[in-house]
């Protein structure tokens, strides 16, 4: 399955979850339910001890998952178990060191073998990407590029070499729910569209159905992370129906 399948004839709803929070069994049950609630693509977060691009909500999720004993291998095993039950593309979202220390080629090959479609590394900018993207290409994974409100003169260069979709960061700062998104995202999306035909999804700060609707209207899809993790944090192992209800509402709004 290709990452781009998520954008076929519709606005894509991309959902993020931290694997192993509160435990890997809950993650395993959540993934098919997220698809049922209307997700078109799921970002599976592999926890990292020091996630420098995350706000407090996802930081805390990483800590909970690591404390509960999650490892990269346990996440690979979980994907092996659920892959046949899921009909949407899955991508890993983690940090460079998780991939590098596993052995970059070994990590990417395994991800490809178990049916993953792509990988997002928020601490790997354009200048460093070939270390990972060349191997991704070899194994048929999309290396997803990010574009930020500060990218400006870099947008074209990044967009031209992008693969799968472009993750357009809505605001300055780290991940997390924001009451309003003040950046002129529509303008950035337009700028990206002038350089490439690859779909553009907006993430960072989206939590309400109204925000989801507005952001989807000016792009090809939206990404929601912290708002989902907050529900997992609140309900723990009982979070599944609550995540489902929330996502259903977002799906209807976009």
């Amino acid at each position, binding site marked *: 399955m290709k990452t781009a399948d998520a954008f076929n004839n519709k606005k894509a709803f991309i959902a993020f979850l931290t694997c192993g929070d509160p435990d890997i069994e809950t993650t395993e049950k959540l993934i098919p339910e997220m698809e049922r609630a209307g997700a078109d693509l799921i970002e599976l977060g592999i926890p*990292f001890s020091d996630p420098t691009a995350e706000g407090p909500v996802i*930081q805390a999720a990483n800590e909970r998952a690591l404390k509960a004993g999650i490892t*990269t291998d346990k996440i690979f095993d979980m994907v092996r178990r659920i892959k046949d039950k899921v009909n949407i593309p899955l991508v890993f979202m983690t*940090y460079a*060191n998780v991939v590098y220390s596993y052995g970059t080629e070994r990590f990417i090959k395994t991800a490809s073998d178990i049916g993953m479609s792509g990988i997002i590394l928020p*601490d*790997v900018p354009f*200048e460093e990407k070939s270390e990972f993207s060349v191997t991704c290409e070899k194994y048929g994974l999309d290396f997803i590029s990010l574009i930020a*409100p*500060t990218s400006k003169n870099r947008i074209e260069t990044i967009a031209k070499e992008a693969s799968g979709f472009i993750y357009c960061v809505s605001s300055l700062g780290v991940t997390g729910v924001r009451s309003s998104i003040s950046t002129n995202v529509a303008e950035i999306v337009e700028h990206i569209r002038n350089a490439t035909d690859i779909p553009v999804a907006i993430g960072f700060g989206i939590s309400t159905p109204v925000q989801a609707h507005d952001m989807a209207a000016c792009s090809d899809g939206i990404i929601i992370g912290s708002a989902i993790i907050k529900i997992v944090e609140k309900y723990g192992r009982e979070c599944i129906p609550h995540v489902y209800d929330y996502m259903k509402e977002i799906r209807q709004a976009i």
Partner: protein
Amino acid sequence: MSKGRFGEHGGQYIPETLMNAVIELEEAYEHYKNDKEFNDELTTLFNEYAGRPSLLYYAEKMTKDLGGAKIYLKREDLNHTGSHKINNVLGQVLLAKKMGKTRVIAETGAGQHGVACATAAALMGMECEVFMGREDTERQALNVYRMRLLGASVHPVDSGTATLKDAVSETMREWTRRLADTHYVLGSVMGPHPFPTIVRDFQSVISKEIKQQCLEKEGRLPDVVMACVGGGSNAMGAFYNFIDDSSVKLIGCEAAGRGIDTFETAATISTGSSGIFHGMKSYFCQDEYGQIAPVYSISAGLDYPGIGPEHAYLHDIGRAEYVAITDDEAVNAFEYLSRTEGIIPAIESAHAVAHAIKIAPDMPKDKIIVINISGRGDKDCAAIARYRGEDISE
């Protein structure tokens, strides 16, 4: 391979949001490093404000007591604010000002870099915010007060292990929130390019002076230059101008904590492996899945799970040697130098003193060792007293 590489180490592993900021910084630095006016201003700040050049002091009693190589101490502890940190901070804050920034942010462990940064910000009229692990704000309450006195705000960091590495992470996060008017004054030879190069260049005044002073006093270069290494800025500064002088042995002294065979250590070269963290590829203390390890040292300034990329490279090519010094050895050296020379070194610097105590006796009397005393030890007295079972309040 991207910019800012030292062998395979270094690079720019940071979020896209920060990329234009580090590119802007690199361009500004490339311009100003050759700008006469900038360099004159910096030299004036070094000499008239920070008290440079720092002394190269012949430690005669220590030399006689150990009975081997002749020992000199490079007295960075005599600088304004009490450590080598001021060299980098004056350079970076001046650069930030030239770039039109009005606000600086910084991480700090024990508080030395934070205090230096708050000092330079006060001097140059910049707003200053310092991020410091909650645990460190409690251990180093006096430094928190000093920073506030200097007009900075101090933000305790609760994430992760609430120590130096988390302070770095949080300062990076803060930088992604507010870039336009803000410069991140990184405190060591680490992080994404161009920081390892900028910090090394501003600290290289240490080895430039050592070379000149040693030639004046001894008519030749030293045989050994040694310094403590956390991130590695004082060591990089002390080594840099000697890298091409192959007769000069360079030794970095890491914090072994309770020992390199325990989990309570911060000795990156001895116990770490190659990784990518805080913007750079280098050696880090980590587990098999790349999760960064909580580290430990009695010295808050060496309590960091990584090492600057240029040190990683000097280690790879065998140009510098890195040794691990335990808490016990460092505390003994802290007390030894105080008693022998009447100089109380920072507990960080005491790691280098400890190694000199080990190797000097076996070296011939005509050999010369220079130990970089990166800071003064007043800040450590309460902690060392506690280590010895004596409870004193600051």
